[in-house]
């Protein structure tokens, strides 16, 4: 009985100390925002149903998207390397093949109408430092209908939801600004295997040049995200991606406008980069627990056997 009392006192004191130095202290030190489930409530709802056929004509023609963007699935190859693109715009102009699968439709519409505003970075740009992508001022018809058509077209060519892999989601939404060197990802793409040292130096030089341009464009180089799943955690990452201004007022990181599924896939990609042994850990853990439960029982029986003679 006394032993149980001692155990209870130890457990209670340890738990109190733990509560205050871990969950409580961390909640005092780091603010946390609840997820808004990627609803983007501040953006206007889509009023028109888009027509992908008309959208295609706009994207290829009057919308002038393909002047800067490639759309590989539609046969429009990039006219520039990532580095040349960054030299022209500060950051590589993305390929639009899978934009419809990664970004929220409402966000895409708002983005086409006013990119910097939709990304919540309008204050960073002005006449002397314009946002690289111009606003869409309409092609002569109802501008809202035209935007809805273009969004519908982008959604029609993008990979279906179940084929949006974590890697594809990450590369489309984050990969032009963030490196993940544990996955050999650089801002200009996956690091290839090199046969000759000179090829590696050439590639590294391109990455460095790209990073320098990016740094000039954004003010600082976006961090490598290799260990972010461990240093920030899933909740921080997904709520930060949803609205970066929440945590870091004035940050150059734009709201990317990813939809809930794409955000989930991005987190999965980072989990695989920073904590790839999670599944192994959890499955091995079960067996180790079972082993020690048996150990406890065996040790108890042994103790009882030995002490029978002593009491």
């Amino acid at each position, binding site marked *: 009985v006394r032993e149980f009392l*001692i155990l209870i006192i130890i457990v209670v004191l340890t738990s109190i100390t733990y509560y205050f130095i871990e969950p409580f202290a961390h909640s005092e030190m780091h603010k946390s925002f609840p997820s808004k489930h990627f609803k983007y409530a501040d953006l206007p709802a889509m009023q028109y149903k888009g027509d992908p056929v008309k959208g295609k004509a706009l994207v290829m023609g009057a919308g002038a998207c393909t002047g800067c963007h490639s759309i590989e699935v539609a046969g429009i190859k990039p006219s520039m390397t990532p580095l040349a693109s960054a030299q022209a715009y500060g950051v590589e102009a993305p390929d639009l093949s899978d934009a419809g699968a990664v970004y929220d439709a409402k966000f895409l519409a708002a983005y086409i109408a006013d990119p910097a505003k939709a990304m919540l970075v309008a204050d960073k740009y002005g006449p002397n430092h314009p946002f690289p992508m111009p606003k869409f001022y309409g092609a002569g018809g109802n501008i809202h209908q035209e935007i809805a058509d273009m969004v519908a077209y982008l959604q029609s060519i993008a990979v279906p939801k179940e084929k949006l892999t974590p890697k594809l989601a990450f590369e489309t939404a984050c990969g032009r600004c963030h490196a993940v060197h544990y996955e050999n990802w650089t801002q200009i793409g996956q690091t290839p295997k090199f046969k000759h040292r000179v090829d590696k130096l050439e590639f590294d030089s391109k990455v460095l040049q790209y990073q320098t341009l990016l740094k000039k464009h954004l003010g600082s180089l976006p961090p490598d995200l290799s*260990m972010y799943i461990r240093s920030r955690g899933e909740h921080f990452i997904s709520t930060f991606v949803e609205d970066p201004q929440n945590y870091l007022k004035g940050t150059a990181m734009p709201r990317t406008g990813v939809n809930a599924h794409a955000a989930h896939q991005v987190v999965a990609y980072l989990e695989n980069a920073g904590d790839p042994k999670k599944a*192994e*850990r959890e499955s091995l853990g079960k067996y180790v627990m079972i082993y*020690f439960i048996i150990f406890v029982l065996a040790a108890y029986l042994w103790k009882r056997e030995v002490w029978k003679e002593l009491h």
Partner: protein
Amino acid sequence: MAHFTKATSVHDWLNQRLGIDAVRRVMAKEYWIPKNINFLWAMGMILAVMFTLLLVTGLFLMMYYQPNVHTAFDSVNNVIMRQVPYGWLFRNIHAVAASTVFLIIYIHMFTGIYYGSYKKGREMIWISGMLLFVTFSAEAFSGYMLPWGQMSYWAGMVITNLFSLGSLHANGLVEWIRGDYVPSQAFLNRFFALHVVLLPLAVIGVIGLHFGSLRIPHVNNQEGEEIDFEEEAKKYKSGDKKSSKVIAFANDFLSKDMFVLSVFLLFFFWLVFYHYEFALDPINFDPADSLKTPTHIYPEWYFLWSYDILRGFSANIGLIAFAFAQVIFFFLPFLDRSPNAVPARRRGLFFVWFWLLLFDMIVLTIMGKLPPEGSFRTIGIVAAITFIVLWILLPFITKSEKKV
């Protein structure tokens, strides 16, 4: 030279040369422990097992770790955590053991204080135990530098800065400790050397001293009763185990130890697999950056109470208070002036002193982690002053104690 005969078995061969029967008798079969004990008496065994785990996992981690400021972080987080098979397991065990070992050390210490196990011939047990606490602390701190993350770097910066605070500023002590003006390659290398060679050797040496210091005064018991070990051992050996007040180390004491150990290990491995975050601070998963100070810098939880005593005051007074907190526990056997070596529960005011000290250290630990602002700061200062006052009061409280 001794006379050797043709051995009849491997056992006999070894016995003639090494005296293994005698060793077994002295170390296990006839090493007497009081019977009147509770599970708190198993903490020593748990600590021995934890230290072994740390040693073994540490050895394997060292096979892949690179003590270089450019590669240290990735050798831990990429090579060990992602590439080496079960590297993550070794690191998790190492990190969780390094943290829980201090929980058990504190339980072990407060058990000693509660039952008066530092008095009447047991002073050296206490002092060698405190030496172990200090070497373990140094071992923990030096190990925390090695992953070279943000918290490694900045905790290293802040703690070594102690040696440049106040009046210590003038003599270049901090540069001598760091080997540079800021933590850098020289700093990482020397903490690596300390962590993997000098300090583990010191720990092993002091463990030997700690065990040795138990031999003559024997282990204390739950009631602080003075036992005639020879008389009781005779009773035990004659077969009257039931009324004897002593038990043999093996298998009597060992079986109880193993049971307590098994329960602890179940809890420990649950932490290792499912709840290791408390031992692997998130901020340390950002690589060290000398240009980016983290908003909150704090040591691991087991240093928080003394850290809070340090930061409660201005530089010079804080340093003195910190130094006081570091050494005062060593003097416990001499500050306790009471003639009684019995559990605190039977010692009147000392019982109150014991719980006040324990609660005060928990409060200090909590305030040491929280940002020192507003009421947290005030509570921290009050708790720091309380800590010092409690130790100053100890001789007076115990002097007035009546013999029980």
